[in-house]
């Protein structure tokens, strides 16, 4: 996340979410999800784009993917 948002990792808190963090805007949101698609195999669709709007939601989805 720090890499996509171009900020120090210390700024990435556990509760970070789209809309509440200055650098997490519409464009960086898509950059973040496309990075997750490339590196973690996340399947991008309208639901993932609209639902993965917090670090918590992203981690849960990635954990569920690992269990499958």
């Amino acid at each position, binding site marked *: 996340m720090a890499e996509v948002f171009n900020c120090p990792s210390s700024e990435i808190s556990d509760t970070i979410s789209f*809309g509440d963090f*200055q650098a997490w*805007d*519409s*464009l960086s*949101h*898509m*950059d973040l999800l*496309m990075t997750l698609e490339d590196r973690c195999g996340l399947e*991008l*669709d*309208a*639901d993932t*784009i*609209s639902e993965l709007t917090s670090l918590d939601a992203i981690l849960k989805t990635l954990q569920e993917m690992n269990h499958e």
Partner: protein
Amino acid sequence: MSNQTLSLTLDPVVPDFLIDQVQSKMAYLDESVQRAVVCPDGSCMTLYLVQELDLAAQKTLEEKIHRVLTAMVSGALKPRIKILEDKLDRKLPFNKDPMDTLLETGGVYKEGKGMYVLGPLVASLVEYFNRECVDLAGSFEARPYRFPVLISPELLERVDYFRSFPHSLNFVRHLREDLDKIETFAEHAHCENGCLVAPEETQSDIEAMLSPAVCFHLYQALSGTTLDEGVKATAVGHCFRYESSNLTSLTRLWDFTMYEVIFVGEKDFVLDNREEGRKRAQKMYERWGLAYRVESANDPFFVGEFKKQAAFQSAFQLKYEVRAALPFLNDTLAVASYNYHQDFFGRKMEITAPDGKPAHTGCVAFGLERLAFAFLAQYGFERKTWPADVRRALKGI
């Protein structure tokens, strides 16, 4: 008009949901391209060219096409189309292209590419739709604004317009404040093929542009402020969007009139008012007898930004278009839109909502010339077949 064509096989194949978008972007490939037609299955395309191309020019063109396809098509997500209202099955009395009659009878006069003089009938319809929109804005107690047709490059830069919609920009220049240069201009300026030819050094830097949207000016006016309460504003203004060879008839003008009701404030304030705007507009369409559908849509972002931004808009259902039936084409035309920008403009323009967070913004917007065109495409010129409200409003015209 040349009849040179170039037929190409497309790789990747263009999916049906992107054919219109890709086709319209081809107008910006190269000045040799007049028009592009992608075949219905998306596997091929015919380019209509101004002149025959040599092999090197053709190769360059093919490389550009590949760039567009790679950027727009590869990995593109199919949009989630949501239909909120569907009145397309309304029975309509007319099914011809009204432009034919309008041009033949002097109802409109073509002044240049994407530029038309509107005669009394079309002008009166535009005025009627404008009055209806004024009433709609009044029902929200929206406060009236008037905005300039010029806009500063800094404002467009601040809202990322250069990156998102570079293809539609229009520039304003004046002569340099220098007697020698003004006299040089006066001596040499002339027109060739419809374009001004004048010494470049006589002309200023670009310190103003033609405004592509109405609501940007409100966000500029509110920039740096903290709102005590949500803002409801309304304005009608000229919007300028260059659309190259896509500028045909009243459906796509270089300079068009947009009526907007704009909401700025907290998220729920904006979303609730946008939804209320949609519901109240339904009653107007009923009075106008409009055959239309309201469906989710995306803005015409340029090639590099298209895939990401269109997917984002679609996933969050940020934009809905009112698409009016054009029976002569068996197609629809966007005549209005209901837009929600989340806190994009609030952040960019540093507008703070009453809750202390960046303000959310949204608007309901109506394209007045397109409404007039769609009405004539649906009801034609025989007044007795028009809906009573419209007939009454235009009595004596």
